[in-house]
């Protein structure tokens, strides 16, 4: 089991950041790498257990299931059901915390998963920087 942890500071109030990221079907609206997304079976995007089915700009398709959504803690976690990444038991959590000094947001995103040992480095880098940090950077741009 490996763990990837990425965190950043976004210059916007936590409510504003949460409004962007709480939509489980909203990845195309704020990440740079998702082309399109839908919620399977037409379920609401904030119904626990719903599955988002999205296509990356590079063509890969990923299915992820919503496990937790907390408007109280600004926190969301989900698992991967299918992906081309070669990961098992993948569970990720995105969490926001208000920074009272300057009314900003501390954003954390972490994942735990299993994979072939020789792919650990590449996946940790790809997910930590290529996915989480890239999404934070994009969010910073959009909320500036």
């Amino acid at each position, binding site marked *: 089991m490996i763990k990837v942890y*990425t965190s*950043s*500071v976004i210059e916007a109030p936590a409510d504003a950041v949460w409004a962007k990221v709480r939509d489980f079907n909203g990845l195309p609206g704020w990440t740079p790498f998702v082309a399109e997304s839908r919620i399977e079976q037409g379920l609401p995007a904030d119904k626990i257990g719903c599955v988002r089915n999205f296509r990356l700009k590079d063509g890969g398709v990923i299915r992820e299931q919503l496990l937790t959504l907390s408007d109280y803690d600004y926190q969301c976690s989900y698992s991967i059901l299918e992906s081309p990444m070669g990961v098992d038991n993948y569970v990720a959590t995105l969490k926001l915390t208000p*920074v009272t000094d*300057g009314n900003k947001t501390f954003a954390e995103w972490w994942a735990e998963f299993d994979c072939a040992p020789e792919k650990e480095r590449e996946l940790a880098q790809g997910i930590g920087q290529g996915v989480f940090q890239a999404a934070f950077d994009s969010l910073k741009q959009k909320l500036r």
Partner: protein
Amino acid sequence: MIRVRRSAVIDAPIDRVWAVLRDFNSHSAWHPAVGPSRIENGEPADQVGCIRNFTLKDGNHIREQLLALSDRDYISTYCILDATLPMRNYVASLQLKRVTDGDRTFWHWESTFDVPRGREKEFDELVGGGVYEGGFKGLADFLSSSGRLPAALPRVEEKAVVATGFGGPEVLQFQNRRTNPPKAGEVRVQHAAVGVNYIDVYIRKGLYRMIEPPAPIGMEAAGVVLESNAPGFRAGDRVAYAAPQPGAYATVRTMPSDSLVLMPEWMDFETAAAVMLKGMTAEYLLHRTFRVQPGDNVLVHAAAGGVGLLTCQWARALGARVLGTVSSQEKAALARRNGCEFPIVTSSYRFAEEVKRHTGGKGADVIYDGLGKEATDENLKALALRGHWVSYGQASGPRDSFPDLTAKSGTLSRPVLFHYTAGALVNEVAGNLFRALQDGILRVDIRHRYPLAAAADAHRDLEARRTTGQIVLLP
């Protein structure tokens, strides 16, 4: 019940912020609202359950107890036991989290407590604004000021004073000596001043087998971190140390970071280099082997020596009646100027009768004895009932047996400095030392400065007793 929450982002790596915050007694160093603070009962400042007893600069007095401390989760939780403020059931917790984007630190601080009805807003501002937000800024300033480069020392060649064998001062050679880049847990330090101690002579002679020649000697120094591979230190930090591994007689040294402490801004390199070994020894002797209380009768052997003078100064400030042994009238006068009320001149280790006379027949509640094997019977005679005897040196040769203390129900300890500065304790011991220096309780008298290259001359003068006060070497 009100709940106060504040948070901020500090522009420093998490380990650096945590190194300060995990020390429950560090707040007087960085928090602008906090005055003098101490941990009760001499407990370590990272011992869960320990109590910090402090005053705020506005005059209020508070006792707080550490309830939880986690180096894994970077959490410190504590409560108020007593306060001169109308706050009840106060429990606070602070937590750090790593901001991987930019290697910064997110700091969350919150508490719940009760206040008199109608004063909620006032206390939210007092605690959240004055204490928490004031603390964020105070710590950020503390970290950036203690990291400020003092004009960065001029570049030097990497050279060291190496003992090429065991013997006289002539075995000391000033040689080129390359340092390695720091491995994990190590730092590379450029020295600005190096302290000279009599133990350096013993090591050079091979009496203490702490090196295998050829190897550099020297126990203490102060300088600037050039390169760090250890949490809590970064390039440009002003640091000082007394380390268990010899090697301080060098321009640059790579060493484990655990002996290092950050120097307070007001302190100069020469003072730090001269005082770390002897000052931290005086600190643990007076506070940790035995807790000297006002009115205690304290006997300090070699009261005019390096450790002896600092011990006399500090013991007197603690309110003790200080007696000391010295070998000449000149040294008696010196000891007296440094807080030794009753210097006893003796060249034959006869002092017990005098000690009895000055203490109304009681004897010494504690004896600080760096003499070694000599004077065992006299010490036993001079000890008070239930007295404590600290045998910490071996100036007259190693002690191979111990006396029967039954006649006095006495206790004995055989401390070694580096057991009192292990781990996080070094910050506490050095912190007390620095405060005592800043408050003027301790005075350091540097009388002799030699170029590092002339270390052999310093040893010659030291052994010929041509020096008084402290000696530093300057690279």
